[in-house]
């Protein structure tokens, strides 16, 4: 019995750990897509944010790392916004190029900074912060209340983004820009500026996602370490139906599906471990089939 309590706690904790960077990036992309921009460059923003966080943390400690990660995400998204929103170039192509460029630049910069051996485990990380009292609850305690501050920040971002999108004039203008650029323009919304700001906010959150990956989850940096998590975040936005709460649920689903491997292993299931690794992606794909049909993407997305 107590064994299952431990497994349950470990499962929950792993799920939350996996979900945190995805949630951050997907929340950012939700804002971006609600404004009518699809940014495939968030994979690049996340990767750049991860390296910047590693370097920042090495130089000035983990909180400098967090700031550096957010800043790097902002810069990458600003480049994307200049090309795709400012100049009006194709968003899919621009996003692909930005991600490709981020792979190249981070690959080079990382060797330059850490040398061929890499940083190993030398990077100062963010410790877990137990929430007194709550963290003592069996299963739920270790699952939810024993994480880095970035996890709590990501959870806090859910209502904040919701409020921003659905309770502020800025959010109303942003959603209008995403649904009908012409309708928004006629109502006095500066569509390009709004979209650029939404894209950059998305970049900051993607950068933070990269930072949380390095500083709270993995503890080191490796070439291409985001391994497509930015793209997964794009899928999570769709699965979460472009709504912060839906995105939270979708990220949690993906985290839980990933963490299931611990449970399966504890159950002694004799399946190749790759099956467990595939599981979250297959699940997401199937869930998309069930979820998407009934909801529309912002009508102006990608235009």
């Amino acid at each position, binding site marked *: 019995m107590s064994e299952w309590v431990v497994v349950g706690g470990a499962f929950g904790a792993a799920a939350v750990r996996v979900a945190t960077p995805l949630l951050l990036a997907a929340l950012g992309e939700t804002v971006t897509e609600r404004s009518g921009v699809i940014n495939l460059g968030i994979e690049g923003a996340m990767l750049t944010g991860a390296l910047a966080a590693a370097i920042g943390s090495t130089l000035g400690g983990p909180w400098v790392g967090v700031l550096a990660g957010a800043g790097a995400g902002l810069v990458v998204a600003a480049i994307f916004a200049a090309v795709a929103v400012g100049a009006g170039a194709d968003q899919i192509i621009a996003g692909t190029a930005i991600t490709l460029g981020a792979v190249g630049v981070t690959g080079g910069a990382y060797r330059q900074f850490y040398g061929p051996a890499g940083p190993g485990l030398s990077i100062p990380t963010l410790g877990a912060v137990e929430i007194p009292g709550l963290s003592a609850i069996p299963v739920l305690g270790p699952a939810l209340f024993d994480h880095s501050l970035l996890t709590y920040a990501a959870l806090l971002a859910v209502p904040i983004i919701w409020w921003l999108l*659905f*309770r*502020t*004039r800025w*959010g*109303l*203008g942003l*959603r*209008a820009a995403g*649904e*009908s650029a*012409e*309708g*928004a*323009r*006629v*109502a*006095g*919304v*500066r569509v390009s500026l709004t979209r650029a700001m939404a894209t950059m906010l998305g970049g900051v959150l993607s950068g933070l996602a990269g930072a949380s990956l390095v500083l709270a989850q993995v503890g080191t940096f490796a070439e291409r370490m985001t391994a497509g998590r930015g793209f997964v975040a794009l899928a999570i936005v769709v699965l979460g139906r472009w709504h912060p709460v839906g995105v939270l649920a979708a990220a949690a689903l993906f985290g839980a599906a990933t963490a299931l491997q611990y449970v399966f292993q504890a159950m002694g299931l004799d399946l190749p471990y790759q099956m467990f690794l595939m599981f979250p992606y297959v699940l997401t794909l199937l869930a998309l089939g069930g979820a998407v049909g009934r909801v*529309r993407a*912002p*009508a102006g997305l990608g235009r």
Partner: protein
Amino acid sequence: MQALRGAGLSVAPGEVHALLGENGAGKTTLMHVAHGLERADAGRVLIGGVPRRLASPRDARRAGVGMVHQHPTSVPALTVAENVALAAGWAVQPTALRGRVRALGERLGLPLDPDTPAERLSIALKQRLEILKALATDARVLLLDEPTSVLAPAEAKELLGMVRRFAKGGGAVVLITHKLAEAFDAADRVTVLRRGVVTYSGSPAEESPKSLAAHMIGADLPDAAPRVSRAPGLVLVHVEALDVPRMERHGTGLRGASLDVREGEIVGIAAVEGNGQQELLRAVAGLVRPLRGVLEVTRPTALIPEDRTTEGLVAALSLTQNVTLGLGRGAPWIRGKGLHRIDWGEAERRTAQLLADFDVQATGPGARAAELSGGNQQKVVIARAMERKPRVVIAENPTRGLDVRAAAFVHERLRRAARAGAGVLFHSTDLDEVLALADRILVMADGRIRAAPAGATRSEVGAMMLGVGQRRGGEPDA
């Protein structure tokens, strides 16, 4: 290209000022400048005698100027309340906003349910929402761009009545229109624009419809060709008790419709948008599948779709390519059985000939469709339709947005097709067009067809368009 040259007008409180002109004369551009949507190269805007810098519609709103655009500008996915908040710059707290929008509707006598998404509103209620938006911030100046073009006569009358009440209360109104009757009916003063220049400004009382028309187009109106009635021939389209599901989120489908179209006749359908006419026409064209009923159509058919830029033509492709697309595998320059090889050289030669025949102004058959003016785009669509040698021609709002000359050209070509023995079935939201073009008029309301009696007057047909005693979707319970 210059849209306006030294144009201007002034409107006083309590006055309704009609701005007349053909499509493309610059009426909309002039009002966009007054609403901060477009910047003038020279000149200024004075509001209440004070020069204003209008960099955005927000500035115009602050200066007390509201505008109702030609096409609804509401964001379809947002609710009525959200659309009003967006236009008026109100806070987005739902409960308070709901109450505020409801109060606004009641005060103006234009009630709307705040929680209905804009896309669910009927066309008349969409128009109502546009007016709510324009007046939400207590505008003293109201600019209306062709507000009646999609309304039934009774609805249009109601709208003009509202406009006059607004003026009587001390507001100033500019009413853009290309309908002379509307100007005589509603306006205290008239300004006429032609190709960006003011050609007349004064009181409508001093002018006749003919003289105003001359100011608009610079010459007398081309006389419509006299109607040659001939005995209708064989039945080409036979529809009986036909049901078709609705195509849009609002509006109705087709319910138990029956009609015949014969050789050599032009059948016009008068209806307000969203009453099943699109479903009928597209079913006849073979584009949507009916649920039940009889549908017999003699082929080939040709469809002139309502939206020429997204449904009629591919904007990014050349005229040759667009003609090829519309003619399909039957095009004479598509060869071979399995591969269906396209001889583009031949396609280009034949397209050039077609463009010449239909007097299309373009740099050549290689020009992209997007480069053409609306009138010339429509000529390409018609030319292509006629090249199919259709037995049945189906047209939706065939002259929407066209100037008088281009519209006359389109009408002439449809008449010519009928004279050559085709059956023509068309719909227009502009009742005057139906009255002018059709040999026989059918009226659609709420998905059902009724024949207008021969010799029915404009107002009789107009009354039939609104049906009798029907509730319209989206209207709140009283």
